[in-house]
């Protein structure tokens, strides 16, 4: 059972050769490994591997899974490598750039209109959270193709504010 995983932005593959609890798996081209896996609580994976004990907490989010392990967080998206292109999601078409909010917050100002020509570094919108205002800037010059950002609206991290092309 092979899966393609995007882990914190890096591409990996994992092959589950034998299922839990006496699990055998292979990560990329590295040697096959064995691990004893139990799920003592929902979403919690107790893994014994090479004599070491790990508690991995798996959480489902709209953008994929977040695995917490010894204080580290792994953002992981899983997919079938045979049936899906390797192109990362959200990169858009040729020459089109999406501008997303880097943080959850409220759109306090929209600084451009659809159809405007913008310079690289020009402010697109101002998002505010926790007493901090953050101006989101155009990564390069272009024309504003779409502008989902609305003043007063609440946005999630990664939510698209505008596309330029």
């Amino acid at each position, binding site marked *: 059972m092979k899966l393609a995983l995007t882990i914190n932005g890096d591409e990996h593959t994992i092959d*589950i050769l034998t299922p839990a609890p006496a699990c055998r798996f292979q990560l990329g081209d590295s040697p096959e490994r064995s691990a004893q896996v139990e799920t003592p609580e929902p979403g919690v994976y107790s893994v014994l591997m090479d004599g070491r004990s790990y508690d991995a907490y798996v959480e489902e989010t709209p953008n994929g899974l977040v695995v917490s392990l010894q*204080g580290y967080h792994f953002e992981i998206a899983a997919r079938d490598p045979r049936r899906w292109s390797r192109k990362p999601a959200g990169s858009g078409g040729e020459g089109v750039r999406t501008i997303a909010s880097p943080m959850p917050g409220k759109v306090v100002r929209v600084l451009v209109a659809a159809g405007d020509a913008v310079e690289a570094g020009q402010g697109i919108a101002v998002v505010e959270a926790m007493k901090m205002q953050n101006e989101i800037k155009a990564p390069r010059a272009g024309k504003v193709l779409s502008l989902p950002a609305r003043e007063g609206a609440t946005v999630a991290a990664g939510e698209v504010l505008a596309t330029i092309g």
Partner: protein
Amino acid sequence: MFRKVLIANRGEIAVRVMRTLREMGIGSVAVFSDADRTSRHVRMADEAEHIGPSPSAESYLRTDRILDAARKHGVDAIHPGYGFLSENAEFAAACEDAGLVFIGPSAESIRMMGSKTAARRTAMAAGAPVVPGIDHAITFEEAREFGRIHGYPVLLKAVAGGGGKGMRAVEREPDLESAFRNAASEALRAFGSDEIYVERLILKARHIEIQILGDRHGNLVHLGERECSLQRRHQKVMEECPSPLVQQHPEMRHEMGQAALRAARAAGYYNAGTVEFLVDQERRFYFLEMNTRLQVEHPITELATGLDLVRLQVEIAAGAPLPFTQEQVAWRGSAIECRIYAEDPYSNFLPFPGKITRLTRPLGPGIRIDGCIYGGWVVPMEYDPLLAKLAVWAGSREAAIERLLRALSEYDVSGIRTNIGFFRQILEDAEFRAGRLHTAFIDEFFERHAPPQPPGDLTAVAALAAALHTLARNGDRLVEGEPRPAAGSQWLQAGRSEFLR
């Protein structure tokens, strides 16, 4: 003693104050805005009163609504916490006018120490050294003149300032004019006043502050220092007691303590307060400002001295004399505190409010957490990103660092981003361990270090857990132990639609 106290605040500090009130057998009254109905401080209080919409200007900053709540609930006193109205002399005076005790200094002391320039004048009059600067609102031309006399870099600051707002470091004269304009407009937005003053900027300065405590009978003691040099955007993120520098030069505690007491005495100060100093590389210290309230980082002083500052604040406000003398104050071991913020340290410390999907707190020897969060709570986007303060105590600084690392590895806050991993990286840093701290430490830290890479085995375990979870969740029986052929299985369809945008 008081029967009932209203806490004019929210978040972790409201919870902190309630804990002591409960130990003292005093009832606590919470106030809350729309955004805080289910916040911890409301759930924990004996009584609670709604005071308005989410923006603080319409709730936590409304003296009239807070005093109405106080009257309605029949409280004897008001604890202001920190921030919000805690350093507002008019609020302190309004409490007293309403026949309520303000748990803090007198309105007059707040006036003398509240604005940074007034505080500088008070401190100078008391003989405390100050950073060379101009003590009143200045024009751009006066700032330029100052730079020509004292040299660069200089620091522009808002007269009404705090929290780094309206502050600009200027390296050379050509940058002065735009910096002056930006600082003034930022100050106007933040404080309603565009008045700016100027100081010489001390490079690689340490921020070391002295906790003081005085009663209403003229007794005044200091409780030693806290080093708060680790800052981002001029806000503290990590504090320790004792300061590593003072540990090497123990005479500094007495010298800074005496300077702090002189400044406090000049303001007729009582209750808890903190005198902040900058310390340059030659270990000369300069009065920076006084915070006329309980400080965020007070727990480390409590851990090192064994005192409960909130209890002392309440007792002093009720008229009791200080229960100890300066000679009886003793410091033991080493305490370090991390401010756990909802923010992404690897993305310019951008705030990251949202729902906490899971929370696991560290436990065990030497751990103290002052927090207000719980699993399932949505961290509001209207307020400060401080989620909790994790403080540890141990016999030595080295042991405290190891304990803090251990505690951070047990701390799991999921659903939002926090700076927990960043603290672990700092604690492993050789410069930090050597105690070579200064206020630009974090800026320089990012020049020395990339974001932390987890050990390879952890990545493998995370990948395994994610893969097994994906298979289990999408109906495949792999995890339950019954292998099924992979071909054409439905979870692939489900997985695609769930995980891909």
